[in-house]
C-alpha cells in the first residue's frame, strides 16, 4: 500500500479553518492481501474539541473512504471505537486531539485482538469469554411471578458492584493486558471484572457456578496484577481490583 502525504487545506477546503493541524498516522492492514501493516499520513486541521474519531471520519470523508473503523454512538457509550492512540488503548470518540499534547497522532488497531481491517478488530473472543462467566443474575425464583416482589437492594449492596456495571465491553482492558498478549486462552480482565460484578450482587445465587468457571488453568490465577486494565478503562471501572476481590473469594478470605 502506498504511503500518502497530503495537506487537508489543499485538498479539502471545506474543512474547519484553523491555525492548528495535526499529523494523523493511520495503520492500514488487510489480512487478506497484506503481509504487514503500513501507516498512511494525513495532515488534519483540528479545534480544541475535535476528537480522534472525528479526525478519522474527516479522513474518510475527504481523503480515503476505504479506511476501516468501527464506531457508533460517538459518546463513549457503545464501546465500538477502541483503538491504540499514540500507543495507548483509548476510545477514539472520547479522546480529544488537543488533550494528547502531540503534533503527531498515531492510530492503530487494539492489541490482543485479530484485525478485520485497518482499525477494526474482531470482538468474538471478548464476547465469548464474557458469555462464559454467565453475566446475568442467577436465581431459582423469579420476580416475574405475580405474587413476588422485585428483588430489593440497599444502597450499600448496590455500592458493592455498581462500578463494575459500567463496563461497556469496549475491550480496552483486554488490549492493555500483558497476560492476554501471550496467553490467548486467558479469560481476561473484562470477563473477570464482570464475574465479580455478579458475584458481588446480593441478588445473585450463582457464585459457586461462576467461581468454578474462572478457577481453571487459564482463569483468574493467570492475572499478574499489572493494573494496566484499570488504567485504560474509559468508564472508571477497576478490573484489577475486582480480580483481587474474586481471588479473595477463592482463597476463602471473602464470603
Amino acid at each position, binding site marked *: 500500500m502506498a504511503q500518502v502525504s497530503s495537506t487537508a487545506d489543499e485538498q479539502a477546503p471545506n474543512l474547519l479553518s484553523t491555525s492548528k493541524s495535526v499529523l494523523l498516522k493511520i495503520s492500514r492492514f488487510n489480512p487478506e492481501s497484506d503481509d504487514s501493516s503500513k501507516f498512511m499520513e494525513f495532515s488534519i486541521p483540528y479545534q480544541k474539541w475535535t476528537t480522534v474519531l472525528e479526525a478519522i471520519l474527516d479522513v474518510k470523508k475527504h481523503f480515503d473512504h476505504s479506511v476501516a473503523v468501527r464506531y457508533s454512538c460517538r459518546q463513549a457509550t457503545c464501546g465500538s471505537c477502541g483503538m491504540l492512540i499514540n500507543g495507548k488503548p483509548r476510545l477514539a470518540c472520547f479522546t480529544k486531539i488537543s488533550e494528547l499534547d502531540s503534533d503527531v497522532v498515531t492510530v492503530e488497531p487494539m492489541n490482543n485482538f485479530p484485525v478485520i481491517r485497518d482499525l477494526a478488530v474482531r470482538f468474538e473472543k471478548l464476547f465469548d469469554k464474557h458469555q462464559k462467566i454467565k453475566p446475568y443474575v442467577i436465581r431459582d425464583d423469579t420476580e416475574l411471578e405475580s405474587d413476588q416482589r422485585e428483588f430489593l437492594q440497599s444502597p450499600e449492596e448496590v455500592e458493592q458492584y455498581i462500578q463494575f456495571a459500567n463496563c461497556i465491553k469496549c475491550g480496552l482492558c483486554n488490549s492493555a493486558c500483558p497476560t492476554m498478549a501471550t*496467553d490467548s*486462552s*486467558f479469560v481476561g480482565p473484562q470477563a473477570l471484572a464482570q464475574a465479580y460484578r455478579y458475584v458481588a450482587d446480593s441478588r445473585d445465587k450463582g457464585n459457586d457456578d461462576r467461581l468454578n468457571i474462572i*478457577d481453571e*488453568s487459564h*482463569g483468574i*490465577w*493467570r492475572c499478574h496484577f499489572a493494573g494496566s486494565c484499570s488504567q485504560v478503562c474509559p468508564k472508571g471501572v477497576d478490573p484489577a481490583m475486582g480480580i483481587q476481590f474474586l481471588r479473595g473469594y477463592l482463597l476463602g478470605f471473602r464470603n
Partner: protein
Amino acid sequence: MKESTIMKIHYGTALASVGLVAVHILMRLTTGFADSLSYENVLANYRSVPYVIMLELILILLAVHGFNGLRVILLELKQGRVYEKAISYGCVVGMMILIGYGSRTIIMTNMGMV
C-alpha cells in the same frame, strides 16, 4: 486438582520456604566461615536429625513451588491441549525426580555414606 488449590499450595510453599530458608541462612551467619562451610562441618551438619529434616522440607517446598511456577510460565507461553498436559505432567515428574535425587543425597550423607 482445582487451580485455586494448586495456587494455595503455591503461596503456602512460598511463605514456608521464606521462613525455613531464613532459619537456614541465620544458622550459617551465626557461625564463622570455616565452622559453617568447611567440608567436614558441612557433612557434620547432615548428622543432625532436626537440621536434616529442615533441609528435606526446604527441598520439598522449593521443588513444589519452583516447578509449579515453571508450569505457570510455560502455560502462558504457549497454549494447546496436548502441550498443556505435557507441561503439567512433565513438571510433576521433574519435581519428583528433583525431590528423589535431593532426598537420596541428604539420606546418604546422614548415614555417613559420603
